[in-house]
């Protein structure tokens, strides 16, 4: 697996942008600036960026309720995302979707999803479209350990296997589904074997290590593009914040997150690797971090300054409207 310096810097920048975005949303939420349910992705950056690095604009991803990281990694506009989360004009979904439904079809991002297990069938559909149209496009379904027990996810793996659809099923295992531990909820305790049971090629990956994720995804995507059928990755890490903003995490052993943050953080890990291998100068990484912070500062400023949607927007976008037709 060869990555040139630019790719390495891009990957680090993507991860920093997500981290900065999430930390900042966390703070803004605490001050009451952000309405609704917000589920943060911090701690899981290596997965979104590692998997999406080798995706092309025409490839699709289906995301989860924890979708900001996936959206950023797939190239969604950070300023418009922030406006969306604040519920303002200029939001990626005009303030109608919010954090939980953030989407940009033009970027191949099929949406965060309020329904656990809602995404995998959509990814199958995007892959089916690629097959019918004869393009080389692939699709990625991101889902959590909780969603891995949902019928829709299992049905999708089978469907993809039957039609050899180019879908990469990415199980993002952050240890919990809301308050429920994945070590308890996944029968058989072996996700890779479950996926193999449906006929998928599967791999377990350390989600703290960007390079491990990137390598596994790159290889899987290449095989899929060559007609190899669906694949599965089980990526493990910890989520840093509560299930949603405001969750006190009473179900977690105290100190669990702190330990992970100190010793297994994917950003720290990548930075250390890049520096110790002499691949990127520390000053360059500092600059990337500062740029990410500035980008997010800007996004928050833009979101705060943006006006709320127009009340008349309540009635728009329900259906496609045709000139002269009845509503």
């Amino acid at each position, binding site marked *: 697996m060869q990555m040139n310096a630019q790719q390495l810097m891009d990957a680090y920048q993507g991860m920093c942008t997500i981290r900065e975005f999430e930390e900042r949303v966390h703070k803004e939420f605490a001050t009451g600036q952000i*309405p*609704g*349910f917000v589920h943060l992705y911090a701690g899981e950056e290596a997965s979104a960026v590692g998997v999406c690095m080798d995706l092309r604009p025409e490839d699709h991803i289906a995301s989860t309720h924890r979708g900001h990281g996936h959206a950023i990694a797939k190239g969604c506009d950070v300023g418009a995302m922030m406006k969306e989360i604040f*519920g*303002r004009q200029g*939001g990626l*979904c005009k*303030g*109608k*979707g*919010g954090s*939980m*439904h953030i989407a940009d079809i033009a970027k191949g991002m099929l949406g965060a*999803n*309020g*329904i*656990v*297990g809602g995404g995998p069938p959509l990814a199958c559909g995007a892959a089916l479209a690629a097959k019918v149209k004869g393009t080389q496009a692939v699709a990625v379904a991101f889902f959590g350990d*909780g*969603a891995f*027990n*949902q*019928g*829709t996810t299992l049905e999708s793996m089978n469907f993809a296997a039957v039609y050899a659809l180019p879908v990469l099923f990415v199980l993002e295992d952050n240890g919990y*589904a*809301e*308050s*429920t*531990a994945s*070590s*308890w*909820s*996944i*029968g058989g305790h072996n996700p890779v074997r479950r996926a193999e049971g449906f006929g998928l090629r599967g791999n377990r990956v350390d989600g703290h290590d960007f390079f491990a994720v990137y390598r596994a995804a790159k290889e899987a995507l290449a095989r899929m593009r060559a007609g190899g059928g669906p694949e599965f990755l089980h990526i493990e890490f910890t989520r840093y914040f509560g299930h949603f903003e405001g969750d006190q995490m*009473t*179900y*977690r*052993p105290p100190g669990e997150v702190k330990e992970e943050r100190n010793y297994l953080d994917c950003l720290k890990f990548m930075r250390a690797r890049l520096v110790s291998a002499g691949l990127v100068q520390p000053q360059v990484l500092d600059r990337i971090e500062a740029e990410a912070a500035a980008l997010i500062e800007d996004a928050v400023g833009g979101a705060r300054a943006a006006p*709320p*949607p127009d*009340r008349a*927007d*309540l*009635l728009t976008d*329900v259906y496609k409207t045709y000139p002269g037709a009845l509503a």
Partner: protein
Amino acid sequence: MSIKSFRMALNEAMRQEMERDPTVIALGEDIAGGMGALGQQDAWGDVLGASKGLLGEFGRNRIFDTPISESAFIGAAAGAAVAGLRPIAQLMFVDFFGVCGDQIVNQMAKFRYMFGGKATTPVVVRTLFGAGTRAASQHSQCLYPIFTHIPGLKVVIPSSPYEAKGLMIQAIRDDDPVIFFEHKAMYDDVGEVPDEPYAIPFGQANLLRAGGSASIVATGRMVKHAMQAAAALEQAGMPCDVIDLRTTSPLDTNTILTSVAKTGRLVIVDEASPRCGLAADISAMVAQEAFGSLRAPIRMVTPPHTPVPFAPVLEDAYVPGPAQIEAAVRALLEPRK
């Protein structure tokens, strides 16, 4: 009698019924919480905390956290019910019914009828519903008309802590599948709730306020708004009947018709989408049964036919409030041109 929140009222109802009847069990995602996490018991007590403490009291043979597999555990509740238990299953948000629709619509709803009256399916599906919390399109719907449409299901929508406890106890004791709608924006509402168990029978609407100018029919959170509107209307010399339906299946047509016979004017407030909804259903019933007593057209106060938006300004414009209800009544009372 003491002051309790909607959440506490539900908790007390479940606790008292579980104490009384050892066949009552509860299951759902995070209804205890922290399952599998060492030393952690009952960390959540469901997503808004209504079942907190039940695990400690009744143990792991009565309280079951489940994987996120609504088809499996809602269906399992139906199966356990025909096999002799009284399960309370939680479908966290009613919007998620899509993933377990078959088990509700084709399985539990149909057993008694299809099996020639030989099956009894005493299952309660508790579910959160309603707009007003900025939860957007996939977490804010009022899907009770869909369930009301299905014969075999009973549909309950409490409007206060008192109603929540009494209707929940009845739901657990009832021998049919009951879909129990808890408005998430009402969980912290407080009110007088008796300490002892009591059951509110299904199919008996509650006449909350009497007045001859018009009849206002509502459910759930809309009852609060209707009461507020009625208070303002009374001040203005237009006292109204306010009827809390409590259950949409069975529907207490009698109380509605008696009121309309008296007032001659009807406003139906429904938080669900307007098309093929509860308001339309009641409207048709009254038009058919009591056309002669109507002195003005029936008015429906509902949200527009759109998904529930996220942005606060849009959501506030979406949900009907006291002002719209008051305006609807006033419009009926204006001399007709």
